[in-house]
């Protein structure tokens, strides 16, 4: 009985429901969107405005003058840092997703009642300030410290081997600090997968590899996409790990922006660099999104 009613309602639905859906969408957007407009868009506009100023901190300040040359100054001979940052950030993304995926999988499917607790435990180390965490890693990874010392003593590593002040220290630190940003989205997407789909696949004599590549991984794509977004993008502009755990050869674009702002006090140039970084990231991620085709794939997968 209900179905006949539903069916008839269904035919009427497309017109009214879409309009209502749009209203709902705008309603949902309103609070968050408004906040972001005030406390994010306005500062970004200020940032853009600043990037076109000229002047100096020792000559009375800066004033707006359509100084597009700031962009030229900002970008001149900086390609190396952009490239390195992208490589480091990409490594961070790969590292965090690889490390986090199995754990997220296990918690999502086998966590049972303990899911929130386990997630919480994963996040717990990050309640402690990143400064403390990074400094402790410095202690652990000291040239002749806890980890490297014994390894060098037994001859597994050459005497002048070091992790700190090399790319290993920086990427290691980045992976460590960004792990929860990958773990949480992956968990969230994996947890939504209906386990009966997996059981069904196994029942159809699919191998575990097949089940993963054809069922689980595609269904977790929104999570992978989100994990990539939340690790790659902020990691590119990060400066902390390179500053504490790195050396002269590991400088990232985030450190350059720090220098421009703090050391050189060229606020307009720093703003210009940040604008370029930001928009560059947005373009890259849009391309990535298109490449992944997230929406289509998962929509299709969900309709099984």
């Amino acid at each position, binding site marked *: 009985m209900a179905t006949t009613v539903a069916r008839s309602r269904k035919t009427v639905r497309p017109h009214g429901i879409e309009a209502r859906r*749009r209203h*709902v*969408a*705008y309603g*949902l*957007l309103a*609070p*968050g*969107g408004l906040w972001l407009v005030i*406390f*994010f868009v306005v*500062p*970004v506009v*200020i*940032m853009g405005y600043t990037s076109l100023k000229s002047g100096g901190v020792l000559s009375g300040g800066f004033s707006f003058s359509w100084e597009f040359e700031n962009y030229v100054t900002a970008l001149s001979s900086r390609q190396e840092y952009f490239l390195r940052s992208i490589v480091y950030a990409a490594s961070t993304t790969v590292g965090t997703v690889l490390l986090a995926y*199995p*754990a997220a*999988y*296990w918690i999502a499917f086998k966590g049972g*009642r303990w899911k*929130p607790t*386990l*997630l*919480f*435990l*994963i*996040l717990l*180390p990050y*309640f*402690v*300030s990143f*400064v*403390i965490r990074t*400094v*402790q890693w410095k*202690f*652990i990874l*000291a040239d002749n*410290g806890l980890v490297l010392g014994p390894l060098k003593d037994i001859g597994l590593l050459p005497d002048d081997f070091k992790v700190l002040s090399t790319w290993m220290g920086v990427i290691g630190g980045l992976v460590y600090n960004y792990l929860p940003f990958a773990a949480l*989205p992956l*968990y*969230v997407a994996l947890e*939504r997968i209906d386990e009966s789909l997996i059981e069904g696949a*196994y*029942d159809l*004599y699919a191998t*575990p590899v097949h089940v993963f590549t054809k069922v689980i991984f595609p269904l977790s794509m*929104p999570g992978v996409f*989100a*994990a990539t*977004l939340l690790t790659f993008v902020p990691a590119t502009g990060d400066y902390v790990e390179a500053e504490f755990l790195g050396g002269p050869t590991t400088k990232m674009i*985030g450190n350059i*922006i720090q220098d421009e*702002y703090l050391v050189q006090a060229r*606020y307009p140039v*720093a703003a210009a660099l940040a604008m370029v970084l*930001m928009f560059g*990231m947005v373009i890259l991620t849009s391309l990535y999104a298109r490449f992944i085709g997230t929406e289509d794939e998962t*929509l299709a997968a*969900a309709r099984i």
Partner: protein
Amino acid sequence: MSTVVTPPPVHVPLDARPTEPAPLRAKRKRLSRFVLPVYTALLMVYLVSPILMMILYGFNDIPGERQTPRFWGFTLDWYRSVFSDPALNEAVRNSIMIALVAAAIATPLGTTLGLALGRYGFRGKAAVSFLIFMGIAIPEIVLGSSLLSMYVQVQAPLGLLTILLSHIAFDTPFVAVVVRARVQGMDRSLEDAAQDLFATPLVAFRRVTLPLILPGIMSGFMLAFVLSLDDFVITNFVSGQVRTLPIWVYGATKVGLPPLVNVFGTLLFVAGLFLALLSALSQRKQA
């Protein structure tokens, strides 16, 4: 199953249906019962290793004020005087309070954004996505200084309020992305069915959608909390005279972190562990 006319029906036992072969199932069981849990445990150990160092060094019997990598011996002195620095106490209080409130406000804001982006098509969707991307991409130092300029222009008093406002601003995009990941591709037929059966969309939302996206909301909240608790750069710019823990700690690194910081970190961590234990026990009680 078969369309051919069959002899009188024979009861077919359940386990005679086609299922996965036994050796495969054993392999899967090994994976899920042993390999994965051990991996997760090892991962947690990796995550917690600098924290363990931190806890250890909270007992460091250093001669003087400044901490160095050397371990001198055990002492409880720092624990005895843990609340002795009023500035540090205040900084910790501020940090926790700000993180809780910022996460609490950023979560609904981000959730609604994530929901809208993940499930609905509307004009301007690309622009909103763009906005979220920017929120994640912007380097903190420039966002911090721009926010400061904005507050100064409108003559807002710098302090807890401006810190909160700024934190919510950078937490929200992260929550939105996490919720969107949860919601993307989610079958709407469940909700539609609910709307057929229930009276209002609001009830459908509460009874059907919300439980489905709850893990996303929870994760978003936790992520926002951690982001706020840990933030240094933006907070430093907009905090005026207020101090938070990262600001306090960052300054102390110049001269070597005092063991008091380790003590506080340990207490925070232990408090968190305690909370986790409580939640685990309460889950156990549920049928």
